């Protein structure tokens, strides 16, 4: 059982992120925490797994949290670890070992479990989660989805009564989300308590006993599972929530490369790519993308979407094939000049100490345009801010603005909506559409069908 009683919480001097929050979760229930970004979902998950207050500096916590009879604010984290298992958003940074076998055993080794018992427990975990093909491997060779499955498995091996999942699907493709659904169903069936903070909701249909809607740090509404899944679309969108049902994607297929290679736009002809000394990741790929249209690139993890985007941007040399822009064959170097990639982690591509300087470097000699471009990206009032002090959405817009300023024709967005709520997703959608309308060739790599449906014109499945 989890009891959160009259909790108010704030980071440092800032205003509280949770206000007078009370929640009782009986054992064996599956609870969804939902609401817009920054509403306090993650804060609630951290209250339960003890990262608040034990792992959060300068915070003020009032009220009480009791999980499985243990008072969280007073217990040591390693005591909590026996009762509460946590799976986080980023599959890249949840690992402590270099090989999967060690990782699976990590929690049990920390507990000091007897080796014989541990062997049985590990074997049982592999069996019930069906992860035989993940074992005996190097962690760095796993895909994002496989990493997330392994993170889940290593928590599962510890057999905690309570599972806390904080946006577990943010980086997953459809198949991996399907597996996660099965795993949650298994937990429910075994009588574990599950708390999930999520933006993507459709995959949880039928699993949730209660949905807790949080708004601005207040517990706003509590729904039963049935009530929640019957919410009309309009109400749901007004609450800022993502679609409750799986999205069907009926986009027309990508334009094939015609015999006439000299059309306006990007023409890819017989492209084969791969890394040195390894077999090609994909071969003989041909398609056309024209200005004004947004082309979605989708497909399971590990099929070469990243390789394709890196090749198109000139970060990787093709093994064979042609890439043309407006009928002109582009070399690797020219591709780097004509294209831009807005990365999934946009922190990697902002380098200067203010928004203005960032733009100045990108604009080169034509710095007269900066003001207008910043205005169009709704960033002008932040021009003296440090880029790292911007919100996630603003950083993304700034990266796109630098691409526009340096006159790039081809813009590629890599997973621009991972971990975004409905409102932010719609903002990204509007920005992407606008850039296409201004005559850019826009490609979007995504798993997010809801986003692709409202943003893209055609789809390339690889």
């Amino acid at each position: 059982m989890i009891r959160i009683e009259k909790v108010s919480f704030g980071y440092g001097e800032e205003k509280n992120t949770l206000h007078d929050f009370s929640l009782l979760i009986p054992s064996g229930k599956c609870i969804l925490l939902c609401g817009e970004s920054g509403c306090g979902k993650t804060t609630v998950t951290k209250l339960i797994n003890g990262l608040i207050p034990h792992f959060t500096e300068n915070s003020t916590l009032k009220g009480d949290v009791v999980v499985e009879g243990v008072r969280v604010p007073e217990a040591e984290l390693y005591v909590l670890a026996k009762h509460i298992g946590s799976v986080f958003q980023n599959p890249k940074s949840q690992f402590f070992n270099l090989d999967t076998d060690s990782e699976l055993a990590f929690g049990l080794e920390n507990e000091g479990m007897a080796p014989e018992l541990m062997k049985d427990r590990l074997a049982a975990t592999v069996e019930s989660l069906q992860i035989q093909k993940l074992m005996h491997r190097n962690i760095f060779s796993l895909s994002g989805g496989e990493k997330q499955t392994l993170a889940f498995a290593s928590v599962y091996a510890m057999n905690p009564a309570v599972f806390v999942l904080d946006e577990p699907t943010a980086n997953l493709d459809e198949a991996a989300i399907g597996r996660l659904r099965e795993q949650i169903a298994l937990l429910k069936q075994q009588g574990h308590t599950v708390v999930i903070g999520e933006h993507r909701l459709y995959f949880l249909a039928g699993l949730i006993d209660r949905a807790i809607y949080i708004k601005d740090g207040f517990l706003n509404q509590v729904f039963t599972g049935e009530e929640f899944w019957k919410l009309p679309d309009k109400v749901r969108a007004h609450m800022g929530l993502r679609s409750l049902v799986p999205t069907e994607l009926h986009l027309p297929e990508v334009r094939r490369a015609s015999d006439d290679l000299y059309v306006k736009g990007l023409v890819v002809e017989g492209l084969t790519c791969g890394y040195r000394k390894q077999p090609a990741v994909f071969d003989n790929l041909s398609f056309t993308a024209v200005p004004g249209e947004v082309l979605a690139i989708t497909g399971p993890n590990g099929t070469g979407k990243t390789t394709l985007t890196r090749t198109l941007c000139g970060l990787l040399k093709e093994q064979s094939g042609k890439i043309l822009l407006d009928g002109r064959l582009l070399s690797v170097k020219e591709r780097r000049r004509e294209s831009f990639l807005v990365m999934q982690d946009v922190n990697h591509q902002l380098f200067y100490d203010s928004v203005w300087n960032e733009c100045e470097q990108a604009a080169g000699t034509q710095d007269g345009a900066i003001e207008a471009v910043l205005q169009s990206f709704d960033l002008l009032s932040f021009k003296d801010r440090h880029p790292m002090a911007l919100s996630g959405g603003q950083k993304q817009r700034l990266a796109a603005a630098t691409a526009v300023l340096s006159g790039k024709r081809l813009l590629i967005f890599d997973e621009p909506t991972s971990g975004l709520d409905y409102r932010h997703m719609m903002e990204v959608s509007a920005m992407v559409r606008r850039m296409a309308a201004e005559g850019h060739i826009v490609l979007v790599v995504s798993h997010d069908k809801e986003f692709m449906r409202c943003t893209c014109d055609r789809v390339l499945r690889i």
Partner: protein
Amino acid sequence: MGAEKNRRVSMDPRSGLFLLIMANVVAFTQDSLKMELGWIGLLILLFLLCGCISAGIKYGLVFLAVLAIQWYVLPVSPKIIATSFSIFANYARRMFPCLMVGHLMVKTISLRRFIVGMRKLHVPQKLMIPISVTLRYFPAIREEAGHIRDAMRLRNIRGMEMMEAMIVPLMISASETAEELSAAAVTRGIENPAPKTSVIRLHMGPLDWICIVLSIAFAAAAVIM
């Protein structure tokens, strides 16, 4: 020290460490060619036994090449080259066995078995956690640095500017990674004071004892002679 691989024979991390120490002793005390050749030959044999066949052969060939350079090339080369390279060749020869043992350890002993070995030797937990985290942390940071470099190439940032521009995103990414890694670790009980256990059982096999005995013999001979 990558992922665990199913090798037929592999050294115990403890005997590996011991061998490394002995290799150092031998390297800096021995003064006879016979002994050197014997010692190198033994290590190559160990490579072959551990299944690192091509690496073992390569080391053998490189060592012969160094010898050939020292004996046949340097004596007939111009004086300036001979004097500047003879010290280098001499030291390369001396360091050779240490390099071989180090390479063999990295190749055949997984990080996991190394850590279990260190625990068996009662290396304090306070030292083990930072070591294991560091070994895990650097590959992650290297991945991030690759993304940042890609981003800079697309922005056409070059030369000195590149060094400067790298700092902010790298620091942000490093501190985020550190924070997320630690959160994942503490919620899985890394701070638990209970003695850690492991499914891996280390035991010293015949190969380990042979290595230890022979390396002691070589070291003793080198010191005495």
